[in-house]
């Protein structure tokens, strides 16, 4: 990896506060041409806020911004950032769901207009998609709202990398781009980032997957509580070093994450959930016994989320039954697409957590507010949600912390079955380990988990894993049989 030569951007002494929260304190950061800077830090460390400042969507309280050595602080805004070739893929979806893929490209590129602009826009974005994500399956005239979250993420990424003739492109900020992608697409993206950077452009990559950061960036900066606490070439960094710098308590458990086999559970305990995808042709079904952790694997968008919804819907029925599904206990769901499936944007953190538990918080017809607060506070501590007060709006939380609130909602409820829809999107490394622990101990107490995940290492936590392909279960692997090769093999070749 080569040494940075000249700086594309330079941030000096950036401060940003939201009310009492000091999101950024005296942050210095530079990105050089031809460099991929990895940015890591716990949830709420200030990474996204810093990137908003860099992209011009948030004005810092103090500090200076320079582009190629020229001070731009005074005039820094979205448009000047765009003029200077700085682009950002935000953590939250920035596509217009009512527009087509091509039209969304047009929104981002003011230059696409005039006769035949649709064709040009469509070609531009589809070419880029082909380049980054071969086999993406997205068409230029698909309406974004109809795409899966993974596909939307691909479109958003491709859109940021497209370049019309008159545009400059120097630096791309990727804020947790892989959180909604499956392993294959994530790898495609990261490989593309390397070619992009090797061509002399720059990139800031934010991720909670330390492997991605260490494997693909030239330099790594670590943020903690609004400050950059470490900044050195990736080659000099180790996984342990990163974890230590991020200040995670859970670091000790690292590596010990492998779960003890618990196959005995299968035999002894009653069935909690039985569900067959409606298109399944053989009699293979997803079965979960009480106290088990069941993993759903396979490429994104192959029917795992649908199965969870199918179970959830049956669970809402009084008798817990629909045509293909049997659910014996009550269900809660941890959404992965938190914007559309999870949070209530106008509510406080407290109300977002308690909504699933109102029934049990009741005395007579009324909710006991003291109990409600108790519930929220206790889960804030258990999940480590970073906020001065649970009465703050949910949107004041960083992405990962919002996700933690959704965990708190499900775990704090009386549901016996917890369905998880790729729930670790945006959750930081340390917290993940804590949540794994929590899930295991809850399972030990008899809770059942059905867990769709796109990350291989998470499957290690499961007692039994079902691999999906084309809306069907194509393989069932017990913990002892589970290997990455088997999962990947079934994901691709399970059946036509």
């Amino acid at each position, binding site marked *: 990896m080569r040494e940075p030569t000249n700086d594309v951007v330079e941030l000096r002494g950036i401060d940003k506060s939201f009310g009492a929260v000091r999101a950024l304190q005296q942050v210095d950061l530079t990105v050089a041409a031809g460099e991929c800077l990895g940015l890591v830090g716990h949830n709420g460390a200030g990474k996204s806020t810093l990137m908003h400042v860099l992209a011009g969507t948030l004005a810092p309280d103090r500090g200076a911004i320079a582009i190629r050595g020229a001070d731009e602080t005074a005039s820094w805004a979205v448009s000047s950032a765009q003029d200077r070739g700085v682009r950002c893929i935000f953590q939250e979806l920035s596509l217009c769901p009512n527009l087509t893929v091509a039209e969304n490209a047009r929104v981002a590129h003011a230059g696409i207009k005039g006769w035949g602009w649709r064709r040009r826009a469509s070609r531009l974005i589809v070419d880029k998609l082909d380049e980054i994500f071969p086999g993406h399956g997205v068409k230029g005239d698909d309406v974004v709202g109809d795409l899966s979250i993974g596909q939307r993420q691909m479109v958003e990424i491709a859109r940021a990398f497209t370049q019309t003739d008159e545009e400059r492109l120097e630096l791309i900020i990727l804020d947790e781009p892989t959180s909604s992608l499956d392993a294959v697409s994530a790898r495609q993206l990261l490989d593309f980032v390397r070619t992009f950077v090797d061509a002399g452009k720059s990139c800031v990559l934010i991720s909670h997957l330390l492997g991605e950061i260490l494997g693909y960036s030239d330099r790594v900066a670590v943020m903690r509580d609004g400050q950059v606490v470490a900044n050195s070439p990736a080659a000099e960094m180790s996984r342990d070093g990163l974890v230590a710098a991020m200040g995670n308590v859970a670091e000790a458990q690292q590596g010990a994450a492998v779960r003890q086999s618990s196959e005995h559970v299968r035999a002894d305990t009653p069935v909690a959930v039985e569900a067959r995808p409606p298109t399944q042709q053989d009699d293979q079904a997803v079965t979960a016994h009480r106290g088990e952790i069941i993993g759903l694997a396979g490429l994104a968008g192959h029917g795992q989320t649908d199965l969870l919804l199918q179970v959830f819907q049956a669970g*809402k029925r009084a008798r817990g039954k629909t045509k293909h599904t049997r659910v014996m206990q009550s269900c809660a769901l941890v959404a992965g697409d938190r914007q*559309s*499936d*999870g*949070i209530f944007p106008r509510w406080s953190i407290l109300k977002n957590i308690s*909504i699933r538990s109102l029934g049990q918080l009741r005395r007579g017809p009324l*909710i006991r*507010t003291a109990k409600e607060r108790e519930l929220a506070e206790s889960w804030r501590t258990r999940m480590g949600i970073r906020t001065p007060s649970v009465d703050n709006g949910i949107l004041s939380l960083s992405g990962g912390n919002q996700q933690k609130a959704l965990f708190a909602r499900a775990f704090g409820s009386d549901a016996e079955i917890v369905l998880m829809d790729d729930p670790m999107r945006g959750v930081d490394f340390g917290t993940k380990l804590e949540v794994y622990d929590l899930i295991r101990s809850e399972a030990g107490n008899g809770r059942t988990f059905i867990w769709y995940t796109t990350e291989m290492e998470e499957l290690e936590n499961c007692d039994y894993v079902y691999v999906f392909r084309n809306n069907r279960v194509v393989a069932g692997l017990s913990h002892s049989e589970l290997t990455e090769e088997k999962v990947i093999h079934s994901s691709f070749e399970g059946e036509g």
Partner: protein
Amino acid sequence: MDQLRQKLGEVPWVWSFLGAAVMWVIAVYVADGKGAGDMLSAAMSFSVYFVIVGIGQMFVITLGPGNIDLSIPANMALSGALAMKVMGGSDAMILVGLLAALGSGVAVGTFNYGLIRILRIPPIIATLSASFLIQSVAISYGRGLRIKPPEGLGEFMSVQLGGVPAIAVLTVGLAAIMAVVLGRTPYGRGLIAIGQNTRAAWLAGINVEVTRYLAYTLCAVFAGLTGALLAAFSGGASLNMGEEYLLSSIAVVVIGGTSIAGGRSNVPGIVGAALFLYLMVTMLNAMGAGPGMRSLMTGLIIVGVITLAGGETDT
């Protein structure tokens, strides 16, 4: 200043009360200090109906964009006629008559919801279409004839305790209960959650359809109740007595600080807004403004108040 704004932002209903107070002061000033108290009691006795209807409409509006009940006027006409006919002028039948009005409300609400749920008709059009049907039922049932309310009920509607109408006190009680239902019961929470994000609400375990059904029914029941009360108060039901409630019911809700985008509701604000609208008309009447001027001023005042009160704190 910012802090004050924020404080006020937490209690958006103060604006409507503030507005009402300003209107009242101006009206009293214009009338050379005459009738300040009488003006308030008149405002209270007439605001009652707007408050009750408004609360129902608020439950529907809270469900989120596109949810508005336009069948309120027809519903009021029908239930008013029904109540008066059932009561047949006899004090003994008052309770039965009121129950009949509530029952017709339940029927209307169920019908509205059925159109929305089973036929998937967007609520605005569903309730608009329903209102035509209901109006026909009201016409064919009542034949446009006006039936007098029982003496006892008519008198009760204008009982005053030291200038405060008894019915206003009851209405404030009802509003308080509904505020608690909205803020402190699982049902209310579920309703507000649906208004913010229906899918997320469903996934959080809320019985979406039951909640929506209850909201539409509650709205219709409140409109039905208002129909009966208004008929009693104004000496009989008439086909057109609900007409002005079409827009007013929406106006009191939104001026009262409920977010039209759903997910934020405000019961006290409705009371303030109803008083505000009534006193504003009183003020303009007292000033002797002509019809055009009065309408113009009404509009400017509403826009002015909402601009002062500031917008939604979030988007």
